C-alpha cells in the first residue's frame, strides 16, 4: 500500500462517521446521506493529492457530498433495511433526537450546512467558510440566524440537556 493510500485510509477511518452525521443532519435521510458521503470520499480519493492539502479535507468531503447528485451509488443500492438509522422513526434507545434533527431540517439550506459543519466536524468560522466557499462573515451571519431560530424550537429551548447545563441556569 502506498503512502497516499495509507493517508487516505487513515483519513477515511477517522472522519467518515462525522461526515456521515454532518450530511445526515442536512438531508435528513441516513441512506441518502451515506450515498452522498461515499461519493464525497470517492471524489476526495480521485483528487487526494490536492484535497489532502486543504485545511479541512473532511469539510471538503461534506461540501462535495451536499452538492453531489446521488447518481452512482443510489441506483445500484440493494435496499437493505437499516431501521436503527431511520431518523423519522428513530428508536428512543438509539439516542437519536428526532425533534432536534427535524428542527435543523426546517432551517434554510445554508444555515443547515453551517450548523452541520460547525457541530459535527467542529470546524471554526474560517474553515467552515472555506468548506462552503463563502465568506467568513457570511458564515457568522448564517450561524447567528440558525442559532436564533433553533433557540425558538421547543426541542432545543426546553431540552433537558440544555436546561441542565450549568451555563443555562437562570437562577429561577
Amino acid at each position: 500500500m502506498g503512502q497516499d493510500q495509507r493517508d487516505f485510509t487513515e483519513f477515511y477511518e477517522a472522519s467518515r462517521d462525522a461526515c456521515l452525521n454532518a450530511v445526515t443532519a442536512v438531508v435528513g435521510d441516513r441512506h441518502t446521506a451515506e450515498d452522498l458521503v461515499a461519493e464525497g470520499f470517492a471524489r476526495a480519493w480521485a483528487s487526494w493529492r490536492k484535497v489532502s492539502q486543504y485545511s479541512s479535507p473532511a469539510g471538503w468531503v461534506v461540501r462535495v457530498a451536499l452538492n453531489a447528485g446521488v447518481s452512482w451509488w443510489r441506483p445500484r443500492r440493494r435496499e437493505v433495511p437499516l431501521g436503527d438509522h431511520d431518523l423519522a422513526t428513530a428508536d428512543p434507545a438509539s439516542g437519536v433526537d428526532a425533534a432536534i434533527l427535524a428542527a435543523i431540517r426546517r432551517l434554510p439550506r445554508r444555515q443547515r450546512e453551517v450548523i452541520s459543519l460547525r457541530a459535527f466536524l467542529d470546524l471554526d468560522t474560517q474553515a467552515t467558510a472555506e468548506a462552503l466557499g463563502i465568506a467568513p462573515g457570511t458564515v457568522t451571519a448564517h450561524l447567528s440566524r440558525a442559532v436564533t431560530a433553533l433557540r425558538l424550537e421547543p426541542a432545543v429551548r426546553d431540552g433537558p440537556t440544555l436546561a441542565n447545563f450549568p451555563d443555562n441556569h437562570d437562577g429561577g
Partner: protein
Amino acid sequence: MNDDDDVLRRAREALPGSHMGIPVEKIMAVGRSRRHRRFAALSVTGTAAAAAVAVGVAGVLGAGGHVAPVTRGTIRTAAFTLVSNANGTDTLTLTGGQAFNPGALQRALNKAGIRALVTSGQLCRSPGWSATATPPPGFLPLPFPPNGIISLQLPGGRPVALTPWNVLRLSSSGGGRRIPLDAVLVINPATLPAGTELWFGYRPDDQALFNGVIDQNSYTCSPFRNKPNPGSTGPAGNS
C-alpha cells in the same frame, strides 16, 4: 459557554453513533474510476490520437494510484499478467513464487475496464447470495460458479469447472484442490450483471486467490481463517 456552543452541542448530541459502513476499498475503487473517467475525457479532448491507441502498459501502474484510461492490452507485473483478448474477454495468469500485490491487481483490472474489488486477507460476500440453497459449511455464499463471467482454463485452453475451491495459487503449498500453477482465469466483463462486480480475495497463508461476484453496494468482508486446514476445501472467513 455561549448560545452558539449550546445549540451546536445539542445538534451534535442529537445524532450519536451513526456509522459509515462502506469499506474504504470500495470508496477507493470508485474514486479510481472517477479519476479514470476524468483522465479519459481529458485525453479525448486533448490528445485523441494517443488515447485511441491500445498499448501494452507493463510498468505503467506505478505507486500512488495513478490510473490511465481504459487500456485493452497487456498488463504485466511480477505476480500476474492480465491480457485483454480480441473477443472482449480478459485472461488473468498468476506467476508462482512472486509476492502478490492486491492494489496492483485492482488497478490493472480497473484499467482494463473490469469492475472489481481486490482484497488481501479478507473474504467478501453479499448477504443472501448463494449458488445453492444450502451451501456446505464454510463455503462462499456467493453465486458460484459465476458461469459466463469467469472461467478457469488449464494450459492449452482445456476448461475446468469452477467451484469455490478451485482457486488460483502462487504456490503449490497449502490445502484445497490443486490447480496447476499455470492455470488461467478468463474474465468476460460484458456478462457481469449491472450493480455487481468481481471480487478477488488473496489469502496470504497459502497464496491462493479466491474469486466471486458481489453486489457493489451490499457486501461485507471478514478475515480469512488464519491457517487453512490441510485438505481444506473452502475459503471460509471468520464470521
